[in-house]
């Protein structure tokens, strides 16, 4: 009797573990798709965003260049979304947008700061030169 009860518990726990695995596999697969989409989106955004151009925009046009860096966002390449799951597409587009904007605004800020420093130094030198003259 006791042996039969143990056997029953044994099979019940196996069934429970199997049920958990069956439920967990799609969730894990989804998580994998999301992670893969995030990584690929970030990589593609870094590869396609021209940091030098945004640095120059910030440097030359100051706050205007910075503003444009916040407004303009490069389109995700359609080819990279072909045959991908909805989870992947959602993660890819989010990640692509965030990374591209991060690179653009980061470089534009750096350019803006460098441009401002150059202008201030130039102004100080001009003032000093003018004072030395008079």
């Amino acid at each position: 009797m006791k042996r039969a009860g143990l056997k029953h518990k044994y099979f019940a726990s196996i069934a429970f573990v199997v049920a958990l695995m069956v439920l967990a596999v799609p969730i894990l697969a989804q998580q994998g798709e999301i992670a893969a989409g995030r990584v690929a989106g970030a990589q593609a955004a870094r590869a396609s965003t021209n940091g030098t151009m945004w640095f120059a925009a910030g440097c030359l046009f100051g706050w205007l260049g910075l503003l444009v860096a916040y407004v303009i966002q490069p389109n995700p390449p359609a080819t990279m979304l072909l045959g991908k799951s909805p989870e992947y597409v959602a993660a890819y587009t989010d990640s692509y947008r965030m990374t591209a904007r991060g690179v653009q605004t980061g470089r534009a800020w750096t350019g803006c700061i460098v441009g401002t420093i150059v202008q201030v130094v130039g102004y100080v030198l001009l003032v000093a030169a003018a004072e030395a003259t008079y």
Partner: protein
Amino acid sequence: MHIIILSLMLAFGLVADEAQKLDTIFLKFERKVVRSGSTEIVKGRAYYQSPQKLFVEVQEPIDQIMLIDGGVMLIYYPVEQKAFRIKSKALFSMPFIQAILSVMKDDYGLTEIGYTLSKHEKKGDTLYTHWNPPRKLKKHLGKFTLGTANGVLVYAEARNPKGKTVVKSSFSKHVELAGKQFPLEVRSEIFDKSGRTEEFVSYSDVKLNIPLPEKVTSFKLPDSIRVDEVEW
């Protein structure tokens, strides 16, 4: 960035020019991508309608419909009953169709967008022509090399403005379409900051200027579908 600018310029230059000749295109495709040891294969059909509309029906590995219409890209999953609509201020590039539109030109459409021939050389049967980008766009576009054998395009290489190769493609299995030799197989190596990707694309059943099916021309999302709107 450089590839995107170049593809869009080529696409629009060519679309405008070929509008009379290429109203619609239909093709079946198989795209195999090998990257970091993993391989993925996507199969499906593409329907193009001039000037800027593309309907892609992916059949493998999942059911997916991608509709590009200018600055709007709709991605629909009939099985999952989900959809994304991405709206952008800029136009989306059109997968696969760009290849056909480009090959329809003798010089890959480079002259039209301001590229100039800088030199040429012959190696074996292949004539290589080297092209410089237009002056105004030198900061964004790099040099281009085309290889032709017996008047047929067999090789193309694009570099970035720093002179580094970003994509190398070889073309094979040519068939005649509207008087031009079109390659049914394209093998590409793509180099970017994250590494090297190999891409093999094969086309079949390519048809030009055919009436497109109604499911394509009057495609509409079912009302019950939840759409994630993404303003780009």
